[in-house]
């Protein structure tokens, strides 16, 4: 098939898109003229991989071939959620969107019919905004999902076959995900879409669909896109959830009203500079490259956030505003953004970060790590607030205009234990040191709606930071009972001032016991005493 036109934009090492047009091999049979004119080849390059490369009938193909006008229209219709919406549908079920969609496509087994339809509707709508295959219209496209993840765009993919895939049809890239700067994605896609629409307009000048798409393309750069994009960043639904929704109930308000509540809660304090700072973004013509603190914070809380939690969290954003130099030199020296690594397990990354921090701090603690003292010495403030949402353990906040702060949710059930509080503080320390993005900003609520990858990494960091090998070894050596016995675990945990469960899991992760021993100890400690954990 001869290529009659093509456009490539981007960098194949990070993100690139190529669209080529060719003569429709069936001469426009059973499609519209505009669709036929858009017959061609698609290549999507991510992290050096061509996600459209596949094998078909024993032949290696470098492109997916299909009518590409629906794909162009889908990109334009989905633009803002595609590049700004982070929160997954129904539940935060996996590290990457493609895996989350796979694992949550069925409602829980015992859900009723109304709940099942509501679950599936939310899933279907979310997929419609994020999954490239929504634009396939009968073609065989790779399974690629785009979403926002903090200040990055996550692109994830797998090779799940489609209905009607012939035997032997197989995409070359199996599964993976990468994080990219938003502009790295938005720029090439926009460039290729603009050129393709210009070409289609020349070939089928009377097409209403092409003209409509061209209008949408033009609208992407108008200034009033900003508000919509920030709402997507804040995780505000575009419409109320369907009746019967399981788990997190979203009150039946539109996203505009919810965002207005957030901004009203900020402005109610009468501190204009602090409010502006909480809402400041890094806007590019096509995308919000750097999210504002308010959107970052509220995107990680439950979709059912209460009015009083909105007010309390907004209050923290205002009270922790600083006009200059909010961070100590010591904290700045230790801070470095560490993008989650899709290849390395989150636990390994967290352990590695904790060990390197111990190397840098060179703490002289004989028995246990005083994490509060460490945070205080770095100038990190601790606040205690009672949030209605008991699944949030704590929030972290820092930026060039916000004092580094950890807000402990005193209403979370774990916070009755001082050991759990210590673990939570260490977890938040990880966020403050390594999870900042654009402009050294961070605002995150640690709970079930926070990005799973960085939450798991922060948990591992906390375990290793509070239980470094040298202190663990001396605690084990000083214990009269071996760690194969419940009392041994209790003594080690007490010495290090962590929960029994945290100590046990850490010992298991360090391969100091196997799975059978760990499970046996869990059972013993569950039945042995109500104070065990």
């Amino acid at each position: 098939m001869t290529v009659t036109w093509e456009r490539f934009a981007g960098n194949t090492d990070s993100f690139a898109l190529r669209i080529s047009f060719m003569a429709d091999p069936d001469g426009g049979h059973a499609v519209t003229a505009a669709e036929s004119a858009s017959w061609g080849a698609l290549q999507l390059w991510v992290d050096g991989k061509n996600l459209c490369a596949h094998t078909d009938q024993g032949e290696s193909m470098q492109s997916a071939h299909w009518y590409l006008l629906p794909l162009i229209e889908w990109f334009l219709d989905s633009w803002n959620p595609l590049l700004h919406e982070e929160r997954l549908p129904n539940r935060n079920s996996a590290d990457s969107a493609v895996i989350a969609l796979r694992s949550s496509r069925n409602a829980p087994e015992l859900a009723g019919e109304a709940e099942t339809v509501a679950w599936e509707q939310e899933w279907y709508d979310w997929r419609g905004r994020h999954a490239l295959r929504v634009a396939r219209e009968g073609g065989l496209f790779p399974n690629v999902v785009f979403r926002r993840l903090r200040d990055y765009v996550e692109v994830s993919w797998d090779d799940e076959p489609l209905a009607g895939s012939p035997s032997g049809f197989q995409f070359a890239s199996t599964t993976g995900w990468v994080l990219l700067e938003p502009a790295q994605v938005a720029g090439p896609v926009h460039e290729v879409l603009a050129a393709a629409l210009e070409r289609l307009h020349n070939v089928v000048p009377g097409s209403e669909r092409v003209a409509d798409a061209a209008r949408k393309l033009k609208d992407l750069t108008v200034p009033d896109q900003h508000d919509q994009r920030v709402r997507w960043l804040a995780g505000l639904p575009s419409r109320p959830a369907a009746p019967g929704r399981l788990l997190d109930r979203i009150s039946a308000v539109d996203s505009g009203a919810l965002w207005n509540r957030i901004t009203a809660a900020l402005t109610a304090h009468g501190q204009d500079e602090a409010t502006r700072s909480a809402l400041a973004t890094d806007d590019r013509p096509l995308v919000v490259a750097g999210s504002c603190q308010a959107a970052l914070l509220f995107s990680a809380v439950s979709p059912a956030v209460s009015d009083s939690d909105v007010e309390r969290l907004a209050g923290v954003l205002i009270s922790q505003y600083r006009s200059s130099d909010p961070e100590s030199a010591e904290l700045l020296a230790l801070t470095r953004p560490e993008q989650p690594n899709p290849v390395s397990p989150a636990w390994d990354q967290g352990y590695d970060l904790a060990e390197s921090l111990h190397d840098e701090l060179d703490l002289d603690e004989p028995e246990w790590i005083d994490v509060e003292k460490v945070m205080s010495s770095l100038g990190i403030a601790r606040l205690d607030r009672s949030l209605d949402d008991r699944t949030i353990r704590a929030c972290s906040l820092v930026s060039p205009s916000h004092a580094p702060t950890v807000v402990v949710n005193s209403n979370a059930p774990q916070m009755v234990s001082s050991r759990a509080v210590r673990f939570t503080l260490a977890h938040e320390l990880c966020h403050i040191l390594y999870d900042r993005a654009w402009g050294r900003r961070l605002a995150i609520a640690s709970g079930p709606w926070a990005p799973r990858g960085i939450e798991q990494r922060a948990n591992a960091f906390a375990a290793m930071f509070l239980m470094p090998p040298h202190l663990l070894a001396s605690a084990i050596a000083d214990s009269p009972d071996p760690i194969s016995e419940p009392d041994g675990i209790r003594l080690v945990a007490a010495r290090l001032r962590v929960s029994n469960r945290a100590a046990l899991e850490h010992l298991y992760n360090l391969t100091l016991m196997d799975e059978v021993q760990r499970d046996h100890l869990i059972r013993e400690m569950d039945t042995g005493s109500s104070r065990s954990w």
Partner: protein
Amino acid sequence: MNCAILASGTDRGEAAMDERETTTGLRPLMYEPNPKHKPLPAPGRHGSICPPDADGPALLRGSDENGRKRYATDGSRAYCAQCHDADGNVWHGYPVDWEEVPPSLVGDWIAAGRVDRRTVRRAKRRRGR
């Protein structure tokens, strides 16, 4: 929805017609296959391939409109149809996965006994195997 007709090489003029009027127009639904869903064009020239036992015209007759598309089921699989000639109300179709069908429509089909929930669940669970 293509294959029964495609298998016999029937073109648009011989395609089955539906007497029922639709909400999209006054003309009856007409079915015309797209050769790109026929088994099996050369690599790079096809999309989802219709199973050999799919009866395109019958599926179109029993389909439900949703947005710009129509959807149908044979009780175990799902299909989608797209209009490629609005004046003639002419459609072609192809197989889709259950997750591509609007959930409200699946709910209606289950309520009407056209498919059961367990079949849909299992089909979704088996994706990718």
